[in-house]
């Protein structure tokens, strides 16, 4: 269980948010099951043998290209991924490249784990955020404001680096307010409407009362074991 949790958490949280897809769908499309235990008495019921090692590339894990690189039977050499505490680069952030030919250049970064140039860059030591006050690269720290909000603070000047407006962009909408409602969507007003009233009834009792169903029969004594 722990292993699968680690595996799914490997897919960047922000990539998932950008794709605007439910977790269940990602899990379902990625899954490659080799064996399921048949029904019946088993010493380990519901055992599933499935692929555990995935090779993560720039392709989205739910895409056909990702399946192609990870199709059954194909294994890739192990990739060492540096553990980081909290992701602090977002789509639309101004970043400075600290390595290679483009060293010193400042770019607008994508949502990816890597910046999609000729070669992906590591966020840990190959790029850094740019302080908006003096447009120079800086290290950052996550801190809480007085209102309890988490913000990125420049280590050099101590100023807040604001979240880019494009960070909440997804594939379906630019921002939550500009979302175009689809024909089957429930409108926002109806979603927020409070119709709940507390009653000393179970769900079934309430529905039966509302629909005028009366049940006077006394059930026979039963045994639970």
């Amino acid at each position, binding site marked *: 269980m722990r292993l699968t949790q680690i595996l799914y958490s490997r897919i960047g949280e922000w990539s998932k948010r950008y794709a605007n897809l439910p977790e269940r769908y990602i899990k379902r499309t990625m899954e490659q099951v080799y064996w399921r235990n048949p029904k019946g008495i088993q010493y380990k019921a519901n055992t599933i043998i499935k692929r555990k090692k995935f090779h993560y590339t720039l392709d989205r894990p739910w895409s056909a290209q990702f399946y192609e690189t990870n199709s059954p039977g194909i294994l890739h050499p192990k990739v060492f991924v540096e*553990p980081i505490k909290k992701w602090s680069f977002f789509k639309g952030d101004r970043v400075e490249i600290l390595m290679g030919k483009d060293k010193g250049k400042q770019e607008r970064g994508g949502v990816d784990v890597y910046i999609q140039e000729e070669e992906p860059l590591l966020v840990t*030591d190959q790029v850094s955020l740019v302080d908006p006050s003096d447009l120079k690269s800086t290290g950052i720290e996550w801190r809480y404001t007085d209102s309890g909000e988490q913000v990125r603070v420049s280590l050099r000047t101590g100023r807040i680096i604001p979240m880019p407006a494009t960070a909440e962009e997804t594939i379906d909408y630019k921002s939550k307010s500009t979302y175009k*409602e*689809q024909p089957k*969507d429930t409108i926002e007003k109806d979603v927020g409407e409070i119709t709940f009233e507390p009653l000393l009834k179970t769900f079934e009792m309430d529905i039966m009362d509302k629909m005028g169903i009366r049940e006077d029969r006394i059930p026979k004594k039963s045994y*639970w*074991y």
Partner: protein
Amino acid sequence: MSRLKYIYNHFCVINKNFTTKNALRNQFRFLSQTPSLRGLMEFFDDEKNWGESDVKSGRSWRKDDLRIKSNTDLHKLWYILLKEKNMLLTMEHEHNDQARLFPGPERIDKVIESMENLEEVVRERNRAYYELETGETGEQIEKEITGPFGLPVDYKLTEHSIPKEVNAQWQKEQEVKCRPEDVTNFLLKYKEKEYLANKRRQRRNFNHVIGLLNRFPKMDMEALKEQYPDVDIEKAKASRRYKPPPIFD
């Protein structure tokens, strides 16, 4: 989508006979009270979406959205979601039959997620009622028992009309079919396998941490400790395989 069109025409022919009079005579119950009764065509998606490459949809219903809704609303919403799920599964089946790509497959997951959330909210309400009135949750009791192989298994209590002392059939089902000495033997080997797998996992993590330390000398140690809590980092650094590259600053 020629076959879809055929099915559509076919249903249109059937629908002519579906007058209210006929329906009443056949004791056909219209569950749906939507203004546009499309008959069996409700099993299919809107005709505008046929052959589309992508069908967009909003997010699923969350628990917090559902907690503020009345029981009647939840009851209605359940059937709306159920109908939508039936429709989507029909469409998916039809697309698979025709070897076409089903547009917006995540819609199925959104509907199922919503239904799961809805059920949980209804259960929450019922649990609150029963805990207040009887002091119990009122849900099916589940407990852990020792299975026929000597391993713990979950067992859900079920309702019977006669007590278990006189229920011969149930008692026969509960009979342990394994010899006790076999169970002991099996458990010994099973535990050994578990132990070895655990050891292997520990060793793999330990070696992985050494690999990380060798590759990323400026790594955040707290993040490493968080991700591999069972690895002793000092011990990994004392290993002869720990050869970090020199840092030039």
